[in-house]
């Protein structure tokens, strides 16, 4: 699975380099043969293709890397950063007992209007 990173990560392509290098080497030797610069010889053609493949591998591994596309992914703003741990119920409401957990499968009923909100207002006023 791909994940994003704050620092750019270097990806090398030796396999692609070998394949394209073989194609390039074969094309170059064929061109030299067609232009009568190099005589037609099967071993020569093989040598050029292999050398092209090696050049492609070296380029795919040690070539100067391309810059990453786009900008670096922005870090989360401070307000959106997840907190290390949510505050406990007792820390927020030190004077109240924790309500019982609803049994599995049972949908908890919504709070009645004015009941807890009033209590909260009173506490904030105090």
């Amino acid at each position, binding site marked *: 699975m791909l994940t*994003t990173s704050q620092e750019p990560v270097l990806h090398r392509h030796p396999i692609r380099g070998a394949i*394209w290098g073989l194609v390039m080497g074969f094309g170059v030797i064929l061109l030299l043969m067609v232009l009568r610069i190099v005589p037609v010889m099967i071993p020569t053609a093989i040598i050029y293709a292999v050398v092209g493949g090696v050049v492609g591998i070296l380029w795919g591994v040690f070539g100067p890397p391309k810059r990453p596309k786009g900008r670096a992914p922005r870090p989360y703003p401070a307000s959106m950063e997840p907190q290390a741990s949510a505050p406990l119920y007792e820390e927020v409401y030190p004077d109240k007992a924790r309500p019982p957990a609803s049994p599995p499968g049972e949908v908890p009923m919504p709070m009645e209007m004015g009941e807890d909100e009033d209590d909260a207002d009173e506490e904030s006023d105090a």
Partner: protein
Amino acid sequence: MKRWRNLLLAVGVFGLMAIAPFAAAGGSADEAVVDLFEFIPEQFRDDFEDRNDDGIPDLKEVPPEGIPGIWDDQFGEVDEDAFIAAVGSESFDTDDKGSSLTGPCKGVAISYDADGLSVDAMVDRGGPEPLLDIYGNQKMTRSNPLNVDTRGTLVYFGSSQPETFHDHRWFLKAEGVFKDDGGDPNPRDKNRNAGSVDFGSLLPFPFTALIVAEGAWVDGWGPDELPDMEVYPEPNCVGRGWVAFVGPNPWLTAPGILAMLFAAAGFTGVLFNARPALSWRE
């Protein structure tokens, strides 16, 4: 500015491709010192006339192909493996830029374009001197190969006089390109031959290339195929030399277009698709 630079670059590359073949094909100003008519048997001389004034007789009419020997290979190799085995050999030495023809063999070979005009010629008098062009220079060397038009015809007249070979075998081959072989018991004591090779009809498409060709012709070998050997039994004729297939603009032949496509695709792929890349994705 960048656009003008690219335009200039493209014009330069195109000019190089278009002009180079013509510049390389510049003619020789030497005087012909060999009269090729003296090597053409009398009964064939009326078929030739020097129409382009280059000292080489041009064709009025394409002569018939030579009469094949009883043991001549009429079909060639039928599958790829057999072909590779036939044309692949370690005996070819590209460091040897010279040419040679030993033994009693002598004769002349003239190559023509599709219109029957002469392209090149070579001659061997059978003595110790090397293969020659009509200007007296050594022929079939790397720097002075025999030019053969792949759309045209090659005409030859040869003999082994004063020797007469019987139960002889021969082969002629160029690595990676072709091999032909044959032989004949020669019960009628023939010691000369004439014929033509019509490349225009033999080859599927014209091409250009430089090849090293070698061949041998051995007396008394019998019906078995003649292999590559360091030293052939005497008497024999053994030769090697350079042949340049010429004719069309190399960039416009099928192999030339294929080569350009491969080279361009490979170069582009290496440069842009195989280059290491920095990424924000791990």
